[in-house]
């Protein structure tokens, strides 16, 4: 098996200002099916981003899926809803049964289990009903959300949108080569004749 490692997006915490533009943009580009066009006024569903800006005492940085090459989420999914597609770990949202196993398995905390929306409305369970005050009622579908490297467009939206250029799409092969080169050059400096 010839394997190319999965790409992923990672953030530089020294550049992040915590503005959440990445979250807003992520949601926007993933919600065409919910009639989100160009303005805030077109949004009728909660904003569900696939990366999360985390604030600590002296840091702020977004956390998102690392598209692990041995993705624990994919390996534990009981319905094989999580697959590797073109060097990206992708969740098939329609196959997802909301069992929460991937959420537990992910050490990054990259997965959120939240309501599914389509055409501006909550997607309702096919059959499953919930006991409410007035008897059985419809209930919404919950699915696992995580970064999909913007598989529709192929260009992660967060990377371009960040006003501080804090996010980068990493190809580890390219990254390794450039670091090796820099290290070799510095060896040249170190061992000057």
């Amino acid at each position, binding site marked *: 098996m010839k394997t190319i490692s999965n790409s992923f997006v990672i953030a530089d915490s020294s550049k992040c200002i915590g503005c959440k533009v990445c979250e807003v943009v992520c949601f926007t580009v993933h919600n065409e099916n919910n009639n989100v066009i160009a*303005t805030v*006024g077109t949004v009728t569903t909660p904003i569900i981003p696939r990366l999360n800006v985390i604030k600590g005492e002296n840091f702020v940085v977004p956390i998102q899926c690392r598209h692990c090459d041995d993705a624990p989420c994919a390996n534990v999914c009981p319905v094989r809803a999580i697959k590797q597609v073109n060097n990206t770990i992708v969740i098939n949202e329609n196959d997802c049964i909301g069992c929460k196993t991937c959420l537990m398995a992910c050490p990054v905390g990259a997965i959120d289990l939240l309501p599914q929306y389509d055409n501006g409305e909550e997607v309702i369970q096919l059959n499953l009903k919930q006991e409410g005050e007035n008897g059985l009622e419809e209930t919404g579908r919950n699915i696992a959300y995580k970064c999909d490297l913007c598989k529709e467009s192929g260009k992660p939206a967060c990377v371009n949108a960040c*006003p501080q250029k804090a996010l980068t799409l990493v190809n580890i092969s390219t990254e390794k080569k450039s670091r090796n080169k820099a290290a070799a050059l510095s060896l040249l400096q170190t061992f000057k004749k």
Partner: protein
Amino acid sequence: MSINIVNIDKELCTGCRRCAEVCPVNAIEGEEGKTQTINSDRCVICGQCVQICSVYASNFQDDITPIDVKKDERGMLESIKEPIFAAYNIGQAKLVKEALANPNLYKLVQCAPAVRVALAEEFGLPLGSLTPGKMAAALRSLNFDRIYDTNFAADLTIMEEGSELIKRVTEGGTLPMFTSCCPAWVKFAEQEYPELLNHLSSCKSPQQMGGAMIKTYGAKIDDIDPAKIFSVSVMPCTCKKFECDRPEMTDSGYKDVDVVLTTRELAQLIKDMGIDFKNLPDEEFDSALGNYTGAGTIFGVTGGVMEAALRTGYELITKEPIPNIDLEFIRGNEGVRTAVVKVGNLELKVAMVSGLKNVVPLLEDVKKGKCDFHFIEVMTCPEGCVSGGGQPKLLLEECRPIAYKARKAATYEHDSKLELRKSHENPDIVKLYDEFLGEPLGHKSHHLLHTKYVSRKE
């Protein structure tokens, strides 16, 4: 004003300071990474911070005040589901909704030129869609009794301001004269350069001229007691809410403009009332105070007031129509543009400023007596009112230049297609003077359409 119009929600703000970067008066204070506050003495309420803020309240965060409570505090209608952000302006849509249901009130509305090239964006139509017909239809569906228009009032402003400029130029009055239709600019001048207030045109803004006319002339022609009039204006601007509350804006004998809604608030009200905006058939504005020329509609873009003034001023001075009605050399998006316009024997030196920071060097020149412009148009927002603080808020920064370009293009397109393109050719303007005002700068105009400014410097 005990309640601030533009605010930053302490619970939501992450201290990224992108708002501080766009604030033209450095009114946003706070350390990086900590919650920011707005210095209300410096703030000119332009709302650019509201437009850029990207820190939204998540529906799934349970350690903050519930979103419904926040929406209520901000004056938002309950049915509205759009997200809310840290920097915001308070709203009056609920007040207007109540008034619209009150049969004892006579409800009149006027909309700014920049509203009709952006309102449709909130309903999913392309950026810069020109929809004056749908806008009028929506307002009628909302149950307003008369659909008047700020563009008409803009034509009126040109009559007064054009005459005022000519008077100052020919009679040695205070020059340069600055436009006074942008309330954030006016507040800025009052705060920072009160010694130069005599340079400002004494004309009220089109909104306020419109308001004064609605409760005097408008009341008269419809035989309505002005006390029963509820006058609403829809603006691309958050500072217009401040302007309508200015204590001196009561020359009609009542509060000239009762409430200002932003473009966004109007869209929310339309949605709340279940009106299907996208499928409305075009309707007309009401005559008397609703029909306008192209000159009135270009007020919404930087250079528009100047171009409108020149179209009329040229003819007032030379008694000849201006050879070319499209003054391309006045248009553009650089922060300071200048031009020399030959008007008969006069070489009129004019300047257009967009982006409030850009006016400061000019003001400093005026203080030193080094400014030789005759007339300067000042707009606080980057490309004029189409980029105002109350306009539809963009989700993607990369769309911003596209949106501004589209809204401007739609404005000029609208102007170019209108039959009448010069303010003084508006027959309803002529009628208004004939029947009611008399003549520009006359006694009645002076009382109803002109104003005074106040120093706000400590």
